[in-house]
């Protein structure tokens, strides 16, 4: 059995090499096929059938950018934590959900405080800017605190464990937080009362092709906020001492400790920042989408994680790019390909698989994803 001389091995090797070559060809071949299909469909929809006018495309683009901005905001938190700990913080969506509830309650409370009765105005509408700022601060603080305790209780003791263990712990924390919210706040869907100046659905109207395209105030607010927070985060990571510490810990935990960086404190602070970002996303979600309930963080959380992976996880601008990209795929994709909107998630995941098959590091990411062989 063990007497294989050079000849048999060489024969086996030949067959093997041929097989490998075929498999290696399969991948780009599949890619070309998919690309052709997509181009063909787009040609059909855009040129041949001329389905949608410029007003519709503008609307879809705006939709996509806004949805994308929300995903990006949540994805930034994911990617921050992943970059430092190489761990998927499954409970991130729930942290966002609690921030959303905090925003909801703040707005509700402010809406209930009556300032004057003629004309009947509430605190919310008399001092909307203060109310909004306070809502964000409260939401972000609560989420930041939650993020801190989450790390301390559920993740820190597991830092040295194999990858699966903190993942399950994160899933458990996510389920726990979801149900805690359900028990505390009831499973009812709650409406968020926006201040009058930021009424949902109102916005600037542009006349394109005979119909009014509305660019909603809340949508613009979301987008601008996402960009601002991203820039702010970028500045923190690149320019401050904390940012340097974060980058160092992300690169090599032990050496960073040797260099005098308090690893635990740095990681805690990372979670606080990530939590604060999630909180902002949650309040933003409440303002823009108007619905808050215990499950509201789950699906956007998964989508945002997909976006982060798409853009290259661990990469901050990648999160933004991934988020916007995913948002645009979701809103313009089905229209461009002429398929049902019901299948937009299928489209998103298929694109994810395609991107990861050809560029396992994501669009902007580093090559962390592949097995190094």
């Amino acid at each position, binding site marked *: 059995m063990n007497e294989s001389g050079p000849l048999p091995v060489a024969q086996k090797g030949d067959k093997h090499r041929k097989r490998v070559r075929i498999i290696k060809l399969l991948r780009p071949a599949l890619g070309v096929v998919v690309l052709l299909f997509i181009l063909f469909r787009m040609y059909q929809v855009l040129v041949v059938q001329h389905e949608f006018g410029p007003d519709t495309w503008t*609307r879809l683009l705006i*939709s996509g950018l806004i*949805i994308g901005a929300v995903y990006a905001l949540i994805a930034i938190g994911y990617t921050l934590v992943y970059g430092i700990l190489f761990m998927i913080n499954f409970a991130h969506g729930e942290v966002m959900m609690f921030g959303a509830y905090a925003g909801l309650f703040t707005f509700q409370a402010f809406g209930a405080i009556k300032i004057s009765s003629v004309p009947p105005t509430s605190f919310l509408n008399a001092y909307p800017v203060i109310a909004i700022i306070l809502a964000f601060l409260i939401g972000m603080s609560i989420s930041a605190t939650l993020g801190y305790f989450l790390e301390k209780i559920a993740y820190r003791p597991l830092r040295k464990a194999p990858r699966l263990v903190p993942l399950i712990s994160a899933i458990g924390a996510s389920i726990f937080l979801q149900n805690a919210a359900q028990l505390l706040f009831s499973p009812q869907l709650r*409406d968020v009362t926006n201040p009058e100046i930021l009424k949902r659905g109102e916005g600037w109207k542009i006349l394109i092709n005979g119909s009014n395209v509305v660019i909603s105030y809340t949508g613009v607010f979301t987008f601008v906020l996402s960009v601002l927070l991203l820039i702010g985060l970028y500045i923190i990571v690149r320019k401050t001492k904390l940012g340097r510490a974060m980058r160092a810990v992300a690169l090599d935990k032990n050496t960073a400790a040797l260099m005098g960086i308090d690893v635990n404190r740095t990681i805690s602070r990372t979670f606080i920042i990530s939590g604060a970002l999630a909180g902002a996303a949650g309040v933003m979600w409440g303002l823009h989408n108007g619905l808050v309930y215990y499950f509201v963080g789950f699906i956007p959380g998964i989508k945002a994680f997909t976006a982060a992976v798409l853009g290259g996880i661990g990469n901050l601008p990648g999160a933004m790019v991934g988020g916007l990209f995913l948002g645009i795929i979701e809103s313009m994709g089905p229209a461009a390909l002429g398929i049902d909107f019901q299948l937009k998630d299928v489209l998103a995941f298929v694109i994810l698989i395609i991107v990861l098959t050809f560029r396992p590091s994501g669009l902007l990411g580093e090559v962390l994803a592949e097995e190094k062989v």
Partner: protein
Amino acid sequence: MKSLKFFVVFTVLALLFTACAPKATPTAVPVATEAAVATEAPAAVDEVPAVCGTDPFGCAVFAPGDVIKIGMGAPLTGGDASFGLDISQGAAVAAKDAGTFNGVTFELVAEDDGGTPEGGAAVANKFAADQAVVAVAGHIYSGASAAAMPIYEGVGVPMLSPSASNPPLTEQGSKVFNRIVFTDQTSADITAKYLYDKLGVKKLALIHDGQDYGKGLAELVGASFAALGGEVVVEEAITPKETDFTAVLSVIASKKPDAIFFGGYTSEGSIVANQMKSTGLENAVFFGCDGTFGAEFLTRTGANGEGAFAVSLTPLDTPAKVAFDAAYESAYGKKPGELSPYTWNGYDSTAALIDRVKALAVVNAVGKVFVPRGALVDAVRGLKDFVGISGTYTCDAKGECNANGPLFMVIKDGAWVPAP
């Protein structure tokens, strides 16, 4: 063989658990068994009535002090919980009104089926295993009812749904399924006619939530509308639990429909109504269904809801209705019909079921109450001239027992009013 040891330990534990677990409530008397021997002293003989021996599904047995359960599968948690709660509460009033019958009381047992087929099947399996459940006033949602039907069929538990309106439900040859609500086909035809003739809609867009009920209804409306000569410009599905439908609505707006028909429930319907205004559909009419009716739709849409239609079926003010309204409000603090249009149907279906049970039950010498299951199935199907709050019901051979048609409601000045 350590794993085997663990297996043994585990099985022993399982046995212990079984021993300590509560036994199921009154056992059914299976087909053709010997009569139960009396444990009481001299006089009365605890004899099983002859009908239990011949009934294909046997009898459910209740001793004095027991509770006859009427089951109900409804969404009790999540976004549509208000529907389920509302109808189950209406039905609970009926169970209370039924009083005591030969020492036995009635109870409405509502279980959460989430409004989904999966939940419906799960709840049905649970009820099927519970011998005290003799009939089911449900399920509330069509999808859940469809999945539950064959399970009840297998154990002889009749259904009388107050709200499951999907037409195919009575086309399957089921012996156990009956309903007192009009079918979606009726609703769709009348809706299409209203849209085409009354509102003058020529181009209709269809949106549904991808679930059994919403999809079925939207497709029926589309077919009826097209048959009348109208044009269905687009049909799209949204995903429930999502909150941003601006993309779909933009695409729909590009087709310039006069009205949008929405098949689904309030949680998504209210979002569609809200987002219509900012996606170029300001001039389109939002036409919902009975799933979008209720106080919640009002509060969710606020000003955006002005002019939105929905389907309801509020009955006329008879003394029975007034009495029920008062009882409901005193028990639950809300007026019936606020949360869903089916509160009265909930009462009626439960009352009808209890009426049939009372008519069929056989009491033996020691006071035990026997309910023959197969006979009950036939009795519910054979319901004739039952006077309920919402009308008088007679079931046909297929299980359609509805007495009335849909009533259109529109939001005007922030409240639901009957549509002209």
